[in-house]
């Protein structure tokens, strides 16, 4: 049971990282990036192609290539969608047109994945030393350590970025009062671009870390993304710390459900989880406790 909880937490941290990407974009531009999964999946495939088969690049090089691809695609996607975002839009609280446009991007990315890579299922492991140990009966592997380290780095990095740098302050300003921020001379576009690029990086990181456990195919990343979305809903789309809490909850709950109940109904379970979270924690699980939102 404890090992289930532990495994769930580890995977949950990855959902959290991906969810933070979604929250970054929503906070700064009030839109949902439905292409998050497809872009991350595309990048994972790039790593696969670069590091295996004919190319045989070292893993790190492959990852750098994938990160560049993701950043490039995300940057391009943002610039394409930017004209559709109406910054002075105060009438509706979400940028629906821009959200629909992200679906267009998602479709194209999915299409490219299908076209170039087909419906193969491949395995893409991390180049980690095979190491494991046991603590209080729970198996701890090098993979778990890697996930913990990366998560800590990501969270610390984001915290420093948002709390201490000028870009971070601009991000916080645009997130709460975009019109006022623009009037004060802040470049709203730069903040948006930062959110998209950061989100793409987070997506790739999360995807590469989760693929060793789920194998890589045209659909695994999409399914993984549903868990990230669930984490963002539970944590609240306005809360970055909430994503961490939400991610861990989704990870543990999914693991328990898959083991004790029925793995083939995982999507239905996530739907039920989302609806229950909306009913009992509207706006996110952390939204009641703290007055100001991060």
């Amino acid at each position, binding site marked *: 049971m404890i090992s289930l909880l532990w495994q769930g937490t580890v995977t949950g941290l990855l959902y959290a990282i991906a969810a933070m990407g979604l929250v970054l974009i929503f906070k700064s531009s009030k839109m949902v990036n439905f292409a998050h999964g497809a872009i991350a999946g595309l990048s994972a495939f790039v790593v696969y192609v670069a590091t295996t088969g004919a190319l045989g690049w070292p893993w790190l090089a492959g990852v750098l290539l994938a990160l560049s691809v993701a950043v490039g695609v995300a940057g391009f996607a943002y610039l394409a969608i930017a*004209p559709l975002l109406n910054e002075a839009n105060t009438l*509706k609280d979400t940028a629906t047109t821009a959200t629909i446009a992200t*679906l267009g991007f998602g*479709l194209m990315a999915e299409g490219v994945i299908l076209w170039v890579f087909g419906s193969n299922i491949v395995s893409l492991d991390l180049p980690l030393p095979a190491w494991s140990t046991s603590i209080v009966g729970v198996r701890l592997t090098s993979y778990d350590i890697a996930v913990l380290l990366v998560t800590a780095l990501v969270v610390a990095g984001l915290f420093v970025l948002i709390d201490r740098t000028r870009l971070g302050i601009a991000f916080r300003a645009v997130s709460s009062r975009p019109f006022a921020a623009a009037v004060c001379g802040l470049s709203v576009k730069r903040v948006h671009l930062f959110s998209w690029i950061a989100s793409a990086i987070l997506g790739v990181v999360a995807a590469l870390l989760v693929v060793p456990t789920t194998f890589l195919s045209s659909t695994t990343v999409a399914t993984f993304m*549903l868990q990230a979305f*669930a984490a963002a809903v539970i944590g609240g789309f306005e809360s970055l710390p909430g994503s961490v809490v939400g991610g861990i909850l989704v990870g543990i709950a999914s693991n328990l459900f898959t083991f004790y109940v029925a793995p083939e109904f995982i999507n239905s379970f996530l739907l039920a989880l989302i609806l229950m979270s909306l*009913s009992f924690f509207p706006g996110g699980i952390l939204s009641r406790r703290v007055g100001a939102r991060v």
Partner: protein
Amino acid sequence: MSDGLITTARSQREFGRPGRLSLGQIEVVAVLIFAALPFWLSNFWTYTLSLTLANAILILSVSFLIRYGGEVSIGQNFFAAGGAYAVAILQTRYGIPFPVGAMVGAAAGVLTGLIFSWPSRNLSGVYLSVATLALGLCVPEILLQWSSLTGGFEGLYVEPNLVPGVASGVQQFYVALAGLGITVIALARFRGSRFGLALLTARYNPKAAEAFGMSLPHVRLLVFAISSGIAGFGGSVLAFASSTVSPNSFSFLTSVYLLVGAVVSLYSTRMIAAVVGGMFITLVPLLMSEYGEIVPIIYGLALFVVIYMANIVVPAAQAAIRRRKARA
């Protein structure tokens, strides 16, 4: 916020200009031509058109939600599947005829839509949209696993036996046409109704809607329930028109394609627009059956192009024309 697609569709609406054919008159002529098509076309094309018309109903459910509610749903396949399987199961298991099945399908759509949208009724539309992602993704697993009821991977067969003696292809076509007609007429009536005015005001000015008695949770529930009801009804019609219901007609991708169809139809609730959207999502996969992987790319591009044209290119062109007129 005035979405470019809706503005473009709006400017096509004639407000009683004398001497020109109104869009409504053109539509009536189009419907009459449509109604005569089975006599001219081969069975294959009649069947394809039946599917187009049924898909048009499903597209209307997405267009309605965006136009009257400003919300996106990528989970309409859930309600469509409900309507389709309702018809199939009632007919194959209990011998209940299609018209009753279709009403059950529509009612099931409304009910499940209400239950689904209830938890997020007070929240921003982003929560609704993300929840529809989950809704859309869980359909195949439910349909596959509950195989005792749904026939699993192979699905169920729906006998087009509404009018004895008439060829099944012809029946399917006219049922689909009638279904689309009923939906379009009902929506046209709805627009001028008390709630239609309320929804169209809330869409652009939620505070104003509240100020005159329409609470926002009610807006959300109403618009989603109608949309899901239309999807359920459309699913029922699709079941009859295609004779088979199986899980791969109701995947998550189906929902996204419906959204593409809605965008291409400029979110209009007019019959012509819905049929154009339906044609786009029915014919493209047909014509590209050899290169199936390119279909999502084409759809993604089409979605982008249409949104760009309507939101950026057309308004810019209109502004340029106005400037030129002002200078003259």
